[in-house]
């Protein structure tokens, strides 16, 4: 039984602990657990303390409350891989869209085409279709018939190079058209004169056998010329 009066004042000590709690703790350590007055005093002190002020709504607190997440290593690695995948798709998908932009313009908007002489060339050569309107660019189709360039040897890859793509041998690959037995690609070009060539299997540079020859390139290879006319967009 405790004889000392209980201090139920609100004057907390340095730790913020009310005096009655401290008194109760000391009393209980001394074996006074059966003192019902002590329990009642502590409970009264607790009830009497003003609840902390809630300045924010409950929903906001739930959203902003700190939480501890538990992830297995496998789940964490999967999450990381997903983040990287999303970033890679965003980066390389955008680049791919830019590179493919000229192909979007293939085909005349109004159904008209401009036929030009090289289309009738027996070995293919550059065949041209244009939008026919005073558009800034015109779609030019480049064609390389296989027999005229392979000389009996198989060619597995052909790319188009010219001053329109910075002479980059990787920038404009051509696709094999089995029906036409020719390599083809299309490029959107503004009106002007362009010099170009084909690169076979990344090694052999050849001029277009059906197109006008350009003057000596100065580097020991031959180039071809295509002229995209400004008025009709026809290419010769």
């Amino acid at each position, binding site marked *: 039984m405790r004889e000392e009066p209980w201090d139920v004042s609100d004057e907390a000590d340095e730790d913020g602990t009310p005096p009655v709690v401290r008194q109760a703790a000391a009393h209980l350590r001394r074996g006074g657990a059966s003192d019902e007055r002590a329990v009642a005093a502590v409970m009264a002190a607790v009830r009497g303390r003003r609840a902390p002020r809630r300045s924010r709504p409950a929903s906001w607190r739930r959203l902003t409350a700190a939480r501890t997440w*538990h*992830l*297995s*290593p496998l789940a*964490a*690695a999967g*999450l*990381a*891989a997903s*983040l*990287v995948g999303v*970033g*890679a798709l965003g*980066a390389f998908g955008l680049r791919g869209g830019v590179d493919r932009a000229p192909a979007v313009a293939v085909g005349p908007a109004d159904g008209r085409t401009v036929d*030009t*002489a*090289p289309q*009738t*060339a*027996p070995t293919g050569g550059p065949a041209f279709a244009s939008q026919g309107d005073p558009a800034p660019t015109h779609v030019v189709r480049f064609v390389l018939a296989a027999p005229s360039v392979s000389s009996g040897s198989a060619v597995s890859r052909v790319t188009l*190079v010219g*001053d329109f793509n*910075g*002479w*980059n*041998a990787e920038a404009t690959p051509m696709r094999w058209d089995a029906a036409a037995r020719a390599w083809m690609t299309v490029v959107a070009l503004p*009106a*002007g*004169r362009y*010099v170009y060539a084909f690169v076979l299997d990344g090694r052999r*540079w050849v001029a277009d056998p*059906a197109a*006008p*020859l*350009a*003057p*000596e*390139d*100065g*580097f*020991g*290879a031959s180039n071809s*010329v295509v*002229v995209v*006319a*400004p008025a009709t967009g*026809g290419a*010769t």
Partner: protein
Amino acid sequence: MRATFTRRVRGACSAALSFTLLLLLLGGLLARTAAAQGAQGTADDPLDRLDAPSRASVEQALDSARALGLPSAPIVAKVAEGVSKGAGGSRIARVVGEMVVSMARAREALGPASTDAELVAGAGALQAGASPDALRRVRAAQPRRSATQPLVVLADLARRGVPARDAAGAVARLIQLGASDAELARLRTDIARDVADGVPPAAATSLRVEQFSARGSLDPSRPPALPPEPPIK
């Protein structure tokens, strides 16, 4: 208590491992993107691929072209072509210098109002062996239309062995007969085929010009050729 501590340690290790993995992956992605951008930057400026003396020569040629009012894009394209074909820097610089000279001569022959495409085509014709006088003949025959296509045909005929004087005369005659750019291109194709079949180049050119002169056009639906327009003074 110990079990809780162990779980916390394991959780912290897992989080650290995952975070490290994420950083490595992101770092690799960033490095690859930076490398791609670096390669693109190199491709954008072919002069960066030249050694210092060659680059200085090319930049001098570019300065000269600008001072003369000549287009610089064909010069940069020629540098890119040389780099792509594996030519040495000194050779590229020499070819670029010759190109500037040819363009200057072409503009002198074709007139100051010539377009960039005409200048480059005229320079090509000169490099193929045509004379400045041949360019003047083509310009005089086609004063109001672009001379680009006739100059391209002229250069092609010269490259296929047609004497430059004969080639220039043939192109000027065809223009005076009213040949369109498309007809010029078809005639060039016909002459090239004849030459490939063994016809002497000069004879093949003369034959095709005479055929065109007799028919007046390669297109049956086209009216006969009109007399040439007087040159603009």
